[in-house]
């Protein structure tokens, strides 16, 4: 698949002290949903803004659809963006806020109404934005990103302010966009939020790119976790730690890294510990992130 976005040694420094993005290189393939994951302050937003030419890189370069964003012809028709910093005048109606953007982009009022329908805001389009809830503002911002029916969507924390119903709506929406062949780059600091949606992930922390690839490949390359439930959790934990395993304990449950389930079972048997549950799990995205971040810290 051809690359839609290519970042090459991208670096951004704010002043002398803050290194927001540190020598990050990656490619985003056509027609995929890619999650940019990491805690607050990881450099996700700055990276997305550099892709969109809102923030100028200190070093390195980034291209989208084969050129710099600023060199794209009719960019709104090719790239749609939802950014945390972008907002709407509170005194303007939702529909007029979109019309302002659409007029500048050469998009018709009919398309404005169409996108309001898509994000289920048609009934509220004539209300002033100041009366919108956070979730409604997020959907309005999503409508703004969709105005030009772009090939690429760049969404910075789109789930912010959404209730569980809104999150489900967003997941369905993103899947529908991918089904139409659009490329979606979506950032989040809540890993579970995007776990069910994305194909690939970029994992960032402290300005650095820690890992990139399909979730399945990344999880395959990391250690599985053995889950154990036992009434003698403390005793088993001590034995496992003595054997060199990594252990996290919560009440009667243990998450064990290192030994296989069979090895854990045998150790428990040798210690005379009764097991109520023993199973092997691939790590979740959250655990994957913690493992990768932890490994890098140790290095």
């Amino acid at each position, binding site marked *: 698949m051809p690359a839609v976005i290519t970042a090459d040694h991208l670096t951004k420094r704010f002043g002398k002290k803050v290194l927001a993005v540190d020598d990050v290189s990656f490619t985003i393939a056509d027609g995929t949903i890619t999650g940019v994951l990491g805690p607050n302050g990881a450099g996700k937003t700055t990276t997305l803004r550099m892709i969109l*030419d*809102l923030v100028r890189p200190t070093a390195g370069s980034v291209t989208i659809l084969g050129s710099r*964003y600023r060199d794209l012809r009719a960019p709104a028709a090719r790239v749609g963006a939802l950014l945390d910093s*972008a*907002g*709407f005048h509170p*005194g303007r109606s939702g529909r007029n806020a979109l019309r*302002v953007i659409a007029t500048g982009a*050469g998009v018709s009022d009919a398309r404005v109404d169409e996108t309001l329908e898509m994000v289920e805001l048609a009934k509220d389009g004539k209300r002033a934005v100041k009366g919108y809830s956070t979730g409604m503002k997020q959907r309005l911002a999503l409508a703004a990103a969709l105005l030009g029916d772009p090939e690429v969507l760049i969404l910075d924390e789109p789930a912010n302010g959404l209730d569980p119903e809104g999150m489900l709506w967003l997941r369905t929406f993103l899947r529908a966009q991918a089904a139409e062949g659009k490329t979606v780059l979506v950032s989040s600091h809540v890993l579970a939020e995007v776990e069910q949606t994305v194909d690939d992930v970029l994992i960032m922390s402290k300005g650095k790119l820690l890992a990139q690839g399909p979730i399945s490949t990344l999880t395959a390359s990391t250690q599985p976790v053995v889950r154990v439930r036992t009434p003698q959790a403390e005793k088993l934990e001590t034995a496992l730690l003595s054997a060199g395993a990594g252990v996290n304990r919560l009440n009667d449950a243990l998450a064990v890294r290192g030994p296989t389930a069979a090895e854990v079972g045998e150790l428990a048997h040798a210690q005379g510990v009764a097991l109520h549950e023993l199973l092997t799990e691939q790590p979740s995205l959250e655990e994957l992130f913690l493992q990768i971040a932890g490994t890098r810290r140790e290095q």
Partner: protein
Amino acid sequence: MIALVRAELLKLRSTRTALGLFIAILVATLVPLTLIIALVPRSWLETDGVTGFLNAASALVPLVLLVFGILGMTNEYRHGTITYSYLVTPRRWQVMVVKLAVYAVVGIVTMLIAVVLVYLVIRVGGAVRGIDIDATGGNTLGDYARTVIVAGLITTFGVALGALFRAQVITVAGTLIWALFVENIIVVLKPRIGMWMPFTVFNNVSAAQVPSSDNAVVAVEQLSRSTAFLVSLVYIALVSLLAVFISLRRDVT
């Protein structure tokens, strides 16, 4: 560029800021002017030079336009709409040039309306009270043209200041304090420097300036209207260019 102009005009039409501007101008000029013409004694209205004073009713308009220009730009940063402006038109100089131009036209049209309204109120008021007043206050058509053009450019000056400083309250308050107090102090203490200060120069262009009195406490030095007009153009061009240049380099975070 046409699409950008249309978007900019839609921005003005779709909030109450522009409507508020017109109401502020009407209140600031016509209400005191009408009251003066209606209530002061006839003998005072027949005094030489009174029409110059009455014309000064429109002197507040450029100040309102200046604030309007600052709000037009700082609102973009305050509400984050600048992000969409740059996403739709990543060549930022186009966004800035269109904004400066649109606000210049709005300022010119607004000042024109204000000047015409002031002229009409003086004419009608004079006729009602049976006094023959020269409603132009001695201004030529050229004076009026310069006044109207500079008012438009002062609006762009506000936009440029907004682009340079971004913080709305600080820019509005700082500009008004500078224009109304600091420059006047400089003019009084150091008249040879003061007469070159931007707002003093803009004011010198205005056809609505109050004529100086022979027995004034402080002798005020000022540039001729045509020189002040040229210096105004230089000031506004420099600040506008600086605003465009800084907008090109600034990160939108």
